[in-house]
C-alpha cells in the first residue's frame, strides 16, 4: 500500500504489463524521451528501451496504423493519442479500420491494441483540447471503451485492457491526473465490463464516469443531508457495459440520474436511459434525468468552463429540482 497519483498509475500500469509481456510495445508523440506531455509515461523508455517505447512524428493516422498492423500479426500494442480530441484526425483508423478489422475478415485477425488518450475538461484549454469524447467511441461497434476514475482503476483496468484481445480505447482524465489514493503493492489486474457501486443508496441511482464520479459522490453526500439517499455507480467501462449492476440498482431505487461530461446529444447517458426505460420501465417511479455538459463546445475561460461541465452544485440542484 502506497499513495500514488492517477498520473503515476499510468506509467506503473504500462510498466507492469511490459514486464509481463516482452512482446508488448508502446508508441506515441513525445512518450519516450520526454515521458509524455502529461508525464504519464516517465521512465518507460529507460526501462524498456527504444525498440519497445517509441517517439513518433505528429502523424496520428500513422501511429494507429502502425499499431493496428502490428497487432494484426499478434504483437500487442499500446498507442497514445495525446488528447482525445485528436481521435478525430485518425477517426478512420479508429472507427472504420481498427473497430471493423476482425468482423470484416470474419475473425481472421484480432487487433490487440489499447489506444490511451487524455480526455475531458477542466484545464482551461478551450474547445479543441477539452472534450469528453467517450461517446465517439461507444457508438462504434468493435471498440471497447474504458474510463477509470481512480489510480487503482487506472492500473487494474489498463492491465485488463492490454490483456484483452480486442481494441480498447482507454480514456485518462486530465483533471484526475493529480488525484491520489493508496494503491495496493504488486500487480493489479481488474476486469472489463464491471461497474462499481461507490456509494450505496436507496432513493436514486446516479450513474457517473471518470471525473463525474467524485462529483456525483460529493453530491450524494449533500443530498444525504437533505434526506435523499443516493446510490452512485461508477460505470468504469462503457463497452462492455455492466447493465446488470445499473438495472438492478434502478429496480431498487426507482430513479435514474446520469452524470455525463460529454455534450448532451447522443451521450452515453442517453444509451443508459433508453436501456432503463425499456428493461426496467415498470420499476421507475420518476422521470429519468440526464445531467450533461450542455450541447456546446467548451469555452476556455475558467469561470465559463466551470459553468459548462457538470458540477457538484448542479448535480445537487438538479436532483432536488426533480424531487420538488
Amino acid at each position, binding site marked *: 500500500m502506497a499513495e500514488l497519483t492517477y498520473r503515476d498509475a499510468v506509467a506503473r500500469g504500462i510498466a507492469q504489463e511490459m514486464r509481463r509481456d516482452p512482446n508488448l510495445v508502446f508508441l506515441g508523440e513525445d512518450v519516450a524521451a520526454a515521458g509524455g506531455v502529461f508525464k504519464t509515461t516517465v521512465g518507460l523508455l529507460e526501462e524498456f528501451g527504444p525498440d519497445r517505447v517509441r517517439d513518433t512524428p505528429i502523424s496520428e*493516422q500513422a501511429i494507429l496504423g502502425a499499431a*493496428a498492423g502490428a*497487432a494484426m500479426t499478434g504483437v500487442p500494442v499500446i498507442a497514445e493519442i495525446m488528447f482525445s480530441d485528436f481521435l478525430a484526425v485518425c477517426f478512420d483508423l479508429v472507427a472504420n479500420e481498427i473497430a471493423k478489422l*476482425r468482423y*470484416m475478415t470474419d475473425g481472421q485477425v484480432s487487433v490487440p491494441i489499447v489506444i490511451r488518450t487524455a480526455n475531458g475538461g477542466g484545464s482551461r484549454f478551450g474547445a479543441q483540447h477539452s472534450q469528453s469524447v467517450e461517446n465517439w467511441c461507444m457508438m462504434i461497434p468493435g471498440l471497447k471503451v474504458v474510463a477509470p476514475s481512480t489510480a487503482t482503476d487506472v492500473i487494474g483496468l489498463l492491465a485488463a485492457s492490454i490483456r484483452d484481445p480486442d481494441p480498447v480505447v482507454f480514456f485518462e482524465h486530465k483533471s484526475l491526473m493529480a488525484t491520489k489514493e493508496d494503491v495496493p503493492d504488486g500487480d493489479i489486474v481488474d476486469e472489463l465490463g464491471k461497474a462499481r457501486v461507490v456509494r450505496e443508496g436507496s432513493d436514486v441511482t446516479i450513474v457517473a464516469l471518470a471525473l463525474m464520479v467524485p462529483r456525483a459522490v460529493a453530491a450524494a453526500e449533500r443530498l444525504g443531508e437533505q434526506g435523499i439517499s443516493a446510490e452512485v455507480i461508477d460505470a468504469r467501462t462503457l463497452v462492455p457495459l455492466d447493465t446488470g449492476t445499473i438495472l438492478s440498482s434502478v429496480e431498487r431505487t426507482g430513479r435514474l440520474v446520469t452524470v455525463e461530461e460529454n455534450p448532451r446529444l447522443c451521450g452515453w447517458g442517453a444509451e443508459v436511459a433508453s436501456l432503463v426505460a425499456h428493461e426496467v420501465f415498470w420499476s421507475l417511479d420518476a422521470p429519468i434525468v440526464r445531467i450533461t455538459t450542455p450541447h456546446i463546445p467548451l469555452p476556455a475561460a475558467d469561470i465559463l468552463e466551470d459553468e459548462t461541465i457538470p458540477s457538484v452544485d448542479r448535480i445537487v440542484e438538479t436532483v432536488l429540482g426533480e424531487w420538488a
Partner: protein
Amino acid sequence: MSISTDEGRYDYATRPVRAPRPEGDPGLDLRDETRLSLYTRLQELRQVEKRAYDLFMQNLVKGTSHLSLGMEAISAGFGEALRPDDYVFATYRGHAHTLSKGSSMDSVLAELLGRANGLMGGKGGSMHLSDADRGMMGSYAIIGAHLTLANGTAWSAQLRNSGQVTVCFFGDGTTNIGAFHEALNLAKVWNLPVVFVCENNLYMEYTPIDYITAVANPAADRASAYGLEPMIIDGNDVDVVYDTARKLLERARQGEGPSLVEAITYRSGGHSRADPAKYRPPAEVEAWKEYDPIIVYHQRLLDRGFSESTLTEISNRVADQVDRATAAAKAGAQPPLESIFTELWADGGSAWRS
C-alpha cells in the same frame, strides 16, 4: 516508361491521349519456368476477373466490384517474387492481389457470391478480400488507411527480425490523401521493410489523375519528400514488374528499408461495375488495349521460342480451373443468418453488455 501530362480540360474524353510507351523486351535473364509461371499467373488473374465480371452481369455478385482487367501484370509480377510469409495489403480492387498471394479461386469467387465457403463467409465481399493465413492482410475500401496498416506488419517483422516484407498496393489517386504522406514518412523514419506499389492507371474514379495532382507522376514525384528514390516502371510488362519486385523485396529483407514504386498501367474496363468509362479518350483506350499485358507477354514468349501450344495448354488448364472454382463457389451454401452476430470480438461473439 513515362506519361505526358497536360493542364487538364473539363471534357476529359477529349483531352490529349496518354498512350503507353512500350520499350520492348527488357531482355532479363529469367529461367523458363519463371516466365511460364508469370504467364500462368497472368492467365489466372485475367480469367478469374473475367469470370467475376460474368457472374456480376448474371447478377450473382451483388453490390459492386472493381476489377484489375488490364492491370494484372503488377500483382502477377509481385506474386511471383513474394515469399509465402510476406504480407500483402490491397485495395477494394484486390481480387488479383489476393489470388497472387495464394488464395484459392473458389474461396475468392465464393466470397464474391456471398457464400459460406467464401474467404470471409460473405461478411467481407468483393471489396474486402482477406486471407491472413496466407499473408493476405486484407483489401481496404477507404482510401489511404491501409498504407499505414502496412507499416504495422512491417514494424512487427522488424521487431521479430523475421525477414518478412510487406507489400502495399494502391492507386494513383491515393497519393493525394493524407494517410499516404504519414505512412511514407514513418516508413522511412523507422526504416521499415515495406514496399509501396502505386498502380498508376491514370485515373482515380472518373477523374484523370493529372487533373487533380500537383505533379506529373503522382508517386514517383513524391518519393524525394520521404528520402526515397523515384521509381517508375512499365506496369504492363510482367518481366519488368517481377524484376523490380525481386530487387525491392530483397532490399527490404536486407534491412535497407522502404521503397516506393510507380507502375504505369491502365484498366481496360470501368472503375467499377456500373462505370462505362466514357470519360476516357477512345484513342487512349484503344492504344492501351493493344498494349494489354497478356498480349504483350504472349508475343514475347513466342518471340523467345516458346510454342503456341505450350501457352494454349496453360490457358486451357487455367480455364478448367476457373470453371471448377466457379462451380465450387456456386455450390456453396448461403451463410447462416446467425453469423451476423459472430466474430466482432475475439471471443467469437458481439455482445456489448457484460
